[in-house]
């Protein structure tokens, strides 16, 4: 049954989504086009969404939102998608709409909310997050970047890394040490600060697969306003824990971005050819390919089963997240390695030209995909979680 709300959204989208933008890909930094007409349409679309409060539809209207429910927000997303576009504001705001904003809504003072949230909700201010440091990755609490208060506010010194979009952001939410004498987690605070100042330098991180949104960010007597402390002094650990929950939430909500890929067996048949009986010419590869496809099917059937069971109230979905994270990794990395093997010496090109787009893409995905078992809780961490939290094996004195 189509509700009144849905009809009104559909009408609004029909009236306000510029034709020039329909089915044009939109990325992290805006529309992927140089055509002035498209660029203009994109800006118009952003302004209209922002005016409607739909950049962050669940936020209060006073902070640039529309005061809607999660369900209504999902209806908006779906209808815009059906119309062939998307809401670009969460991308344009970097970590603003998805992570910093929700945390601000809970921990911020009224003044902080009024000052920061509207810029996120309109997509005009991009935010990054300064959390990890070279010696504080999985073990975030061992961070060492410092913030000290002087008469004019906070003075920040230190280094952050894996700061996504730091070189393109106007603001940053940073986790800093404000009390060296306290136990690790107890001397940490969360500060908001402007990126465009003399004391901050960003250096993009190049990855093995090429360019990336990540930066190393250096702070040398950088400054934050005294009243841009979010939450209590030395209670930044609570703030960041909540923030990371919002991160997991946003990952779950994120639409799958990769388009349905060509079945790997079709690629194999194309590159290797088949015998008269239709089997691949390389029987050794054929067996391993069948193995891979069966592992893939088992992984997908497990997702389907867990979703069915969750609807039936049979299991807690979270208990199986670690299994699925690792099997998703196995399947994706396994597929990439097989693709490379199938493409042979054509699967080893760094750029198209002498290599096809498909070949070059396979290589980049292979390299980029190595991160799947590292980020978001490494392969080893997931096994620890399964062993401890699901199987109830005793905690060891070791973590890893």
């Amino acid at each position: 049954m189509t509700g009144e709300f849905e009809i009104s959204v559909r009408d609004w989208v029909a009236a306000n989504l510029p034709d020039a933008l329909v089915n044009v890909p939109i990325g992290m930094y805006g529309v992927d086009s140089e055509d002035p007409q498209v660029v203009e349409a994109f800006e118009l679309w952003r302004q209209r969404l922002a005016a409607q409060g739909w950049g962050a539809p669940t936020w209060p209207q006073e902070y640039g939102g529309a005061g809607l429910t999660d369900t209504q927000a999902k209806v908006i997303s779906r209808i815009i998608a059906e119309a062939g576009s998307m809401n670009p504001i969460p991308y344009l705001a970097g970590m603003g709409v998805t992570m910093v904003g929700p945390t601000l809504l809970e921990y911020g003072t009224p003044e902080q909310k009024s000052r920061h949230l509207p810029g996120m909700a309109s997509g005009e201010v991009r935010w990054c997050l300064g959390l990890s440091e070279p010696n504080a990755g999985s073990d975030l609490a061992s961070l060492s970047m410092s913030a000290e208060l002087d008469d004019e506010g906070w003075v920040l010194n230190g280094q952050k890394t894996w700061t996504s979009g730091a070189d393109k952001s106007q603001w940053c939410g940073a986790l800093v040490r404000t009390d060296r004498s306290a136990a690790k987690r107890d001397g940490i605070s969360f500060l908001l600060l402007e990126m465009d100042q003399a004391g901050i330098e960003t250096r993009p991180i190049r990855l093995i697969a090429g360019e990336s949104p990540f930066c190393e960010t250096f702070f040398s007597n950088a400054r934050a306003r005294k009243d841009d402390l979010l939450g209590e002094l030395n209670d930044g650990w609570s703030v960041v824990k909540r923030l990371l929950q919002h991160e997991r939430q946003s990952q779950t909500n994120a639409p799958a971005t990769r388009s349905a890929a060509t079945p790997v067996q079709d690629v194999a048949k194309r590159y290797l050819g088949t015998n008269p009986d239709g089997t691949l010419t390389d029987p050794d590869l054929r067996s391993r390919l069948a193995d891979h496809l069966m592992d893939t099917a088992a992984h997908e059937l497990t997702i389907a089963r867990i979703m069915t069971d969750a609807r039936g109230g049979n299991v807690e979905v979270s208990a199986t997240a670690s299994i699925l994270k690792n099997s998703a990794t196995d399947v994706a990395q396994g597929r990439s390695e097989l693709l490379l093997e199938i493409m042979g010496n054509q699967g080893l090109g760094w750029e198209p030209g002498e290599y096809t787009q498909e070949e070059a893409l396979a290589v980049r995905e292979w390299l980029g995909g190595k991160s799947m078992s590292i980020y978001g809780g490494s392969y080893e961490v997931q096994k620890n979680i399964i062993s401890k939290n699901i199987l109830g094996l005793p905690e060891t004195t070791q973590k890893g």
Partner: protein
Amino acid sequence: MAVLTEEQTLIRDQASAWVIDKAPVSSFRALRDSESGQGFQPETFQAMVDMGWSGILVPEQYGGSDLGYLTCGLILEQLGRQLTASPFFASSLVGATALALAGNSAQQEALLPGIVDGSAIVVLALEESSRHQPEQTALQADQEGDGFALNGSKTFVAEGMAATHCIVASRTSGEPGDARGISLFLVPSDAQGITRTALPTIDSRDHAKLSFSNVHVDNSALLGTLDEGMPVLEAVLDRARIGLAAEMLGTASQAFDMTLEYLKTRQQFGKVIGSFQALGHRAAEMYSLMEQSRSCVEAALQAVDAGADNVPQLASLAKCQVGKFLFKMSNELIQIHGGIGMTDEFDAGLYLKRARILEASFGNRAYHRDRYATLMDF
């Protein structure tokens, strides 16, 4: 666990409680040690019959309950957990399925009620060599008078000594290797010319070698269409493979539970061995395999009940993935238990031995990997 109906939940819970209480692995061990030559305890199977399990795949008109394969798989999983020996798989599933899919009403009328009440044990006699290769069927059935004369041999026939009837895959035309020319015959096990020999398999279950010397059957013994037995045989085999996969899931899951329990209780150097990270990670890997195996088995059982057209793929998938889990798990069961795992007194060896029998039945992993690739058209 799939979302079950109330009835399915009831049957699963009943089966779980019953096998632990009435037909646990200790009871199988006692049977083995008795050296009675029996592959199962008749009273065990009778109890199953009394609970109505033998009729789960039989239409109501023949006295069954027709509850479907998912329900049947739930029971098989519990039987697999305790290595409960019975002709439930061979007759209540395979025999009943073959009659349901290929039998005419006279054949169904004659045998399905017996399958339900336990008086008939109808099994499939298929393999002729050391490997599963149905299309290589060579046992010759030559037309003779108003029927056929069967000559040849069958081996690795599950519950072959206890069977009252065999469904014999036979060659009525063509050459071994041809899919066409295979026909199924329903033959009483005591027919003149049949010699049965018990095979002393490592799982101490009933497996038999049958030799056929001029065994005469009437035309009415033909199950299905002459020369066109292969498609229906494959359909029967797929249901058998899926049922086996459910049993294997139970066997491997029990091995997992035993191992997990040991990891939590066995101490070495003053620590519970499950706190050793390397063992914890291996347990985590086994658990993941178990969850994924379950997904494949349930999807396959449901696909049969739904009449889906990807039953063959799912059958090979389930047999292969659970096969991988059972292979690894049965070895881990021994390895993690160490010295105690090597003793016959402990149950690990029973699970390991049964595991390899199940792996070899109706196509091993290599067979199904190849078949899956073929079905996926590469």
